[in-house]
């Protein structure tokens, strides 16, 4: 029997017309549906191998039938990446074991939902490999390249080459960790007694390459005028540097030690002087100060604040003493001014009047010129000096005059 298709078709047509004539919502939301972020640099989040999973750098043979080691390197990014950059041209995969052949890349694929790149390749047994995602190659959806050294700047190669190592068997992976400075002496403080004190630096994540410690890689300077003081490097081991001043250090003198950031370990990794795990093109030298104790002819020990107290409303007293020793000091009255003694509350700076220096020379009274609001913080800056011109040592380590670090802060 012939099916009645005319009536259903007509009804369907009417229904379509009714839908077409329905009054639509005239306001169509049309937000920018494109990638809304993009200013942040992407990074490698985690990596691993197909055979052992994320977090492992061990390569195993997933296909024993085929010759060689068939495995895949997995790289997961912290942002959605541009698929067009997740290709073989954006990477270099090389064997780092001497005499080993280069691996054969079979396929490079990218899974956007997992932000994961997979590099399928055939490797060689007992061989270590270095994967380099070359600077500027891989980008996120907005075209921002990887920033492996985490300085938020596209520095180019080699600074922004993202490097990962893998291995099969017992092959040793290439060292990618930059060396850092561990304990050092003399410590960053004042009051040092030994004029023959050696300079000792212990390195972590070496071993260090002694050939990178050339002339000028370690300097000892007189802090006051930056004049160089002669030192001799006695020894450089993979983990330690030992140097001795050519002459006895002077009492009451402050010295600065400068270790160049261009020294490197045996794998060529430059010094990570700020210990943040990354090396920047403008990585600063490793620097610290120490100061020799005074003898009978010097007066270089800085003052510090011993106490701030408030006995009378709208006023407070600031008392000083010699840092480290606690001996009495005679302060320079001309430096005890509102610019160097500040008072801050929730409304901002409180205008102050600084009174006369007490006859004892170590105490001054300050008067607040408006009613404080909430907690009052007193700041005595490094602009305050004693009678010998030694600037304040706010943190009490015997080294005064460091802006910010040596401002003394307390609350009333």
């Amino acid at each position: 029997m012939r099916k009645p298709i005319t009536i259903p078709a007509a009804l369907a047509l009417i229904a379509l017309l009714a839908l077409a004539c329905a009054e639509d919502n005239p306001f169509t939301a049309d937000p920018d549906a494109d990638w809304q972020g993009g200013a942040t640099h992407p990074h490698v989040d985690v990596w691993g191998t197909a055979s052992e999973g994320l977090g492992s750098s061990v390569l195993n043979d997933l296909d024993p039938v085929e010759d060689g080691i068939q495995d895949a390197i997995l790289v997961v990014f912290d942002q959605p990446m541009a698929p067009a950059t997740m290709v073989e041209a954006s990477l270099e995969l090389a064997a780092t074991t001497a005499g080993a052949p280069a691996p054969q890349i079979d396929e490079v694929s990218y899974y956007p939902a997992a932000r994961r790149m997979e590099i399928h390749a055939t490797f060689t047994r007992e061989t270590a490999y270095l994967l380099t995602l070359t600077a500027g190659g891989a980008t996120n959806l907005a075209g921002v390249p990887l920033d492996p050294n985490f300085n938020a700047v596209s520095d180019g190669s080699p600074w922004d080459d993202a490097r990962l190592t893998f291995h099969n068997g017992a092959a040793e992976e290439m060292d990618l960790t930059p060396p850092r400075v561990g304990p050092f002496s003399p410590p960053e403080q004042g009051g040092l007694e030994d004029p023959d004190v050696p300079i000792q630096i212990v390195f972590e994540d070496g071993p260090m390459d002694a050939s990178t410690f050339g002339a000028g890689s370690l300097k000892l300077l007189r802090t006051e005028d930056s004049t160089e003081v002669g030192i001799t490097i006695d020894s450089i081991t993979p983990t330690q540097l030992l140097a001795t001043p050519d002459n006895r250090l002077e009492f009451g003198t402050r010295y600065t030690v400068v270790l160049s950031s261009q020294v490197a370990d045996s794998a060529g990794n430059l010094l990570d002087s700020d210990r943040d795990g990354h090396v920047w093109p403008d990585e600063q030298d490793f620097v610290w100060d120490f100061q020799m104790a005074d003898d009978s002819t010097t007066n270089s020990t800085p003052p510090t604040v011993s106490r701030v107290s408030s006995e009378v409303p709208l006023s407070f007293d600031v008392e000083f003493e010699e840092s480290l020793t606690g001996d009495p000091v005679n302060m320079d009255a001309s430096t005890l001014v509102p610019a160097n003694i500040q008072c801050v509350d929730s409304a901002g700076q409180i205008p102050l009047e600084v009174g006369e220096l007490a006859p004892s020379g170590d105490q001054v009274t300050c008067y607040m010129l408006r009613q404080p609001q909430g907690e009052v913080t007193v700041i005595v800056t490094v602009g305050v000096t004693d009678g010998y011109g030694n600037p304040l040592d706010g943190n009490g380590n015997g080294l005064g005059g460091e802006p910010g670090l040596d401002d003394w802060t307390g609350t009333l």
Partner: protein
Amino acid sequence: MRVALCLLLVAALGAVAQPQSFRSRSTGGLILDDLDLWMSSVLGMGIMPDRLVEVEGSRIYTGLSNLLDGEDTALDGDSTGETGFLIGGSTDLVATDMALGGYGEFYDHRIFETIEIPGPGPDPLVTGDGAAEGTWSEYADTDGDGTYDSRHTMYRSEEGWTDSTRTGFTLAGGWTPDGVSQVGLGLGYFKDKVEQTPSQLNYSTEVSDSNLVEGIETYTLGEDSEGSELREGGGFGGALSGSFRMSEGVTGGAMFTFISHSVSLENTMTASGSWDSLPSEAEVYDQMTASQTWSYGADLGGSTFGGGAEIRWDLDDTWKMDLVGGYRTMSLDGTSDDYSMSMDTLYQESFGSLLQTTQVDGSSTGSVEVDNSETTARGGLRISASPTDRLDLALGGFFSSHTTSDESIVASSTEIVETFDDGDQEAADPDDYTATSTMSTTEMEKTTLETTGIRFPAAVEFAVLPRLRARLGASPGFVWEKETQSTSLLSASPVQTHIVYGDGTEQEFTEDPWVTSDGTLVTTEDSRTEIPFHYGLGFRAAENLTVDLMGISDRMNQWRVSATLLF
């Protein structure tokens, strides 16, 4: 929104109001005077210069004619008389088959804004027009020792006014080559300018707190702002009209008009300010300085085209009939790309030996596209009669349709960069940061107004005394009105903030939740009946002088007077 509003106002300047006699005003436009004959005729779509030849003799319209807008109250002794004026006239004395007419209108006026300077209490310190300033101080004895310890002083000045100028000229000529047919040509030019100097943008503020015991300032604040909104519009146009006899007692007339419009807009604002919590210490900072500029400019252009036709039928010596129909359209559009806003703020705070600085720089750029249009269609029938010398009456039925559409698309993108430096000179300092925020929107606003009306006006003019004629008019009608105001978000991106710290750490935030106003629509639809009434008096004071009155009530200072010299 503000920009769009300004543009709408400017667009409105393009519509040139034509003078209308008191006789026409008093009778709902049904009974025409000499002036109305060639200014609008019954058609009402613009000047019909050919009909100048129908005006016998000469007319002189002076400041006494009150034709600019008909609103002058000459009998009001308190009136300052600060308004514009229109002067002109018409004559057929140039040649036997020709007539000329024309007028010029002039308006130059400053309207002062009423300024209120606030005081310490609920009442304003000073109130005045144009510009005002004032200072007040408050002294306090904070320690209760009987002497004042502190003083708070505040100074504020504001100024505000609006300057408006308008200049327009119209010249027309009519020619009747055979005494039956008529042709005419009219030319016009106008220029409008409105410059607003609002107190909201033009002010100065100074605040000072002092410690009277030590004689030092403990807080200062200063803020200055200048800004203006300038709108200029101008145009020129022409009108061509003609009349010819179709048959005995039946005359056909037609007219065509063209006006070219141009509008320019220039808005600027500059403001700066600062405060200092420690003005007495030059080396200790707790202060902020800020400035902001805003500018916008636009040039628009457009034109008006219109035309219409009349059939004037003398039914007999008493009765006449006019059948009219016409159409007129105006469009004005343009694009501006030089909208810009910038602001920068620097906050400096000493913390010990460190100077912490927070710098905020913002900029916004964008463009505005404007498209305004206006169409008018009118048609109808007038029947008039003069049964006696003492009586004129008229009846009519008219259909009119008026549609305006104002559309603007405003696109803007904004970037704000905040930089913080704690001043310790630390390399790779995680405390220092630069935060960059961006956003953009493109919105469309559209307002349309459709007004359709059918009116059945009636008017009568009769002689109360030999030289005094009373006029009455009513224009009952049905009016259908629909106004829609809509906004649509065409595209947008959320506020995106990217922070880079000194140690290279990055953070990025996207406005979440992101709430967008995708669109709104407000519709006002109304149908109603109206019956506006009009009345007035016409007095033939002398052979060469007529005086017309409107607004007659028990308060003579509200009467409006129009005097016309005729020869």
